[in-house]
């Protein structure tokens, strides 16, 4: 952690500058009841209440009080270094899944609050932590946070029989995690779009840069406006009216924050791939003829269900497959449990992420599912990783990977 030496420091810079007024009200609103701990995946695997949601809020309140309170203004004050260090760890260990906020007794929007508390830490040079700090440079030099070459973005997985138009009203954005870390998922997306018979366009691998989500979620906002304007203008130039994407994190930032960073409404609408495919099934543009006699269990990604309310469409797609019995996790839909991959915490707190992913695997196995169906590239990569060396095993498939398999008759 940078910049923390000694026992306490005089800090005059206010802690509230990065927060919207409602977020300041939210800090006041927390009653410290602790009910949210029951839903926090980090609590589930660490049991460390010092990094719990109400503790983060309590610590941040203390920072505000110490720098902007009446007493601080009159007599000056100091902030305990250890408290700052504890806070940085707590706020970055969080997966930002938002389950605490969904179950908050006073309705605090934590899925949004945590990234902005992180932003404040970045402003002070205290965050991000570990490899997260390399992301801006990676995005700047390669266009993606994984520092992978642009020529490997589509080539390894893009099917030869699928054609992409130069211009179209419909565009598909693969996203960095899908393209580099969950290729069966993005391959499934384009196979299904092709099967629907829809003409779609894509940006070139050099043009399709990071959507900004990993930077946003780690509090590193400096590049966001540039990235968003570059992407939005590129799609607008291609005459795009609907932008499709399968990554819940990308979809979330596109729908919620791109208009803010773009400075006005987007010239196209954002759709999650399952919305588009569910519509195609309903309108008989896509028929899944092959039967699948399996018990499937679907995991709702945090940023898809709690984030943008895409809950029923994936279920509708899966239920349209004949022979399928769809199972549910105990915590499902908007109350789903994080798989551990969220908030870029998986890059630093690897053991937590694996333990959380294994909770999902274990429940799927206990419920006797034949397959665990995911619809998020980060979940896909992390849950697959968590299977290695685990005593319980289950087949993991992305929702579009499954549909593509059935369409292609594999």
């Amino acid at each position, binding site marked *: 952690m940078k910049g923390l030496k000694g026992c306490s420091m005089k800090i005059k810079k206010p802690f509230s500058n990065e927060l919207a*007024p*409602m977020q300041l009200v939210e800090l006041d609103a927390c009653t410290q009841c602790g009910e949210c701990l*029951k839903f926090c995946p980090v609590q589930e695997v660490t049991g460390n209440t010092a990094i719990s949601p*109400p503790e983060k809020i*309590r610590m941040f309140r203390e920072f505000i009080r110490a720098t902007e309170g009446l007493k601080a203004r009159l007599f000056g004050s100091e902030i305990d270094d250890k408290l700052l260090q504890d806070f940085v760890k707590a706020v970055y260990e969080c997966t930002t899944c938002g389950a605490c906020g969904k179950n908050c007794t006073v*309705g605090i*929007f934590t899925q*949004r609050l945590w990234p902005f508390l992180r932003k404040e830490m970045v402003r002070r040079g205290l965050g991000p932590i570990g490899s997260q700090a390399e992301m801006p440079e990676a995005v700047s030099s390669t266009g993606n946070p994984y520092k992978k070459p642009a020529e490997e973005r589509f080539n390894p997985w893009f099917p030869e029989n699928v054609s992409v138009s130069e211009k179209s009203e419909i565009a598909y954005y693969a996203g960095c995690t899908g393209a580099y870390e969950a290729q069966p998922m993005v391959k499934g997306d384009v196979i299904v779009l092709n099967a629907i018979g829809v003409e779609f366009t894509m940006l070139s691998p050099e043009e399709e840069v990071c959507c900004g989500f990993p930077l946003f979620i780690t509090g590193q906002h400096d590049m966001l406006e540039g990235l968003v304007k570059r992407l939005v203008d590129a799609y607008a130039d291609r005459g795009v009216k609907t932008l499709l994407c399968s990554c819940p994190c990308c979809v979330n930032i596109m*729908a*919620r924050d791109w208009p803010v960073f773009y400075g006005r409404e987007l010239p196209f609408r954002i759709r999650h791939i399952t919305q588009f495919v569910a519509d195609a099934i309903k309108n008989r543009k896509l028929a899944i003829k092959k039967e699948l006699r399996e018990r499937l269990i679907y995991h709702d990604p945090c940023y898809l269900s709690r984030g943008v309310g895409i809950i029923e469409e994936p279920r509708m797609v899966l239920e349209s497959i004949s022979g399928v019995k769809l199972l549910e996790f105990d915590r499902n839909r908007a109350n789903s449990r994080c798989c551990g991959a969220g908030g870029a915490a998986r890059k630093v707190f690897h053991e937590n992420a694996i333990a959380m992913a294994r909770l999902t695997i274990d429940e799927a196995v206990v419920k006797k599912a034949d397959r665990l169906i995911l619809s998020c590239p980060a979940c896909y990569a992390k849950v697959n990783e968590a299977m290695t060396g685990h005593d319980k095993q289950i087949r993991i498939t992305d929702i579009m990977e499954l549909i593509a398999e059935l369409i292609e008759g594999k």
Partner: protein
Amino acid sequence: MTYSGLILALIVYAAYAALFFRLLWRILFLLKASALLITGYGRPARASVRADVKSLSDIIFLTRLLKVNEWLWLGEWLFHITFLMVMIRHLRYFIDPVPEWIMDFQTAGIGASYVFLSALVYIMAFKLFIEKKKYLSSYNFFLLTLLFLIAVSGFLMKNFIRADIVNVKAFMTGVFSFKILEPPGSMLFFFHLITSLIFLIFLPAHIFAAPLTMIDARRRDEGLEGVLHED
């Protein structure tokens, strides 16, 4: 005017001044934050009659707590509602002449004070011994303990060691009209008043903030469908 009356009156003024400056400071702080036009919250949740009616029910019935912990909700709802009733009943000691509806409310208010004390004990016992919560806020327990002491001293004054109610009212109305009189010679009243003033100084901010976040949360929940389903 007596010295003891003056000292007690000054303590009352100091407590109210502390609360006033705390609230004023908070309002100025939020106004300053509003002027910065931070876009961090994203696009604000849209208001709708449906969402706002539902949020009213969230505020009155604490439905968000009910959804996550029904047994704790029982205690917390009774605690909050009876706290309000006890406050209303106490207006009798600050207003002269007392409006008829406040006099009519006394029986209900006294009944509520017993429920209030029981609810406090229930909440603390539930958290400590039944749920055995791993996370307990020391600030919360400080406030609950303070309220417990206020409630117990009130209970004792009402039922066992009665204070001269005429003196109490004369002193309190005197304090608020800046005509300081001799305070009632009851240690229990003194204790009840001082603990109440400490509570006033430490009045939890969620009393003002939580209703606002509950309204916003309901608007957000209602608007979630619209994030990607708008045509």
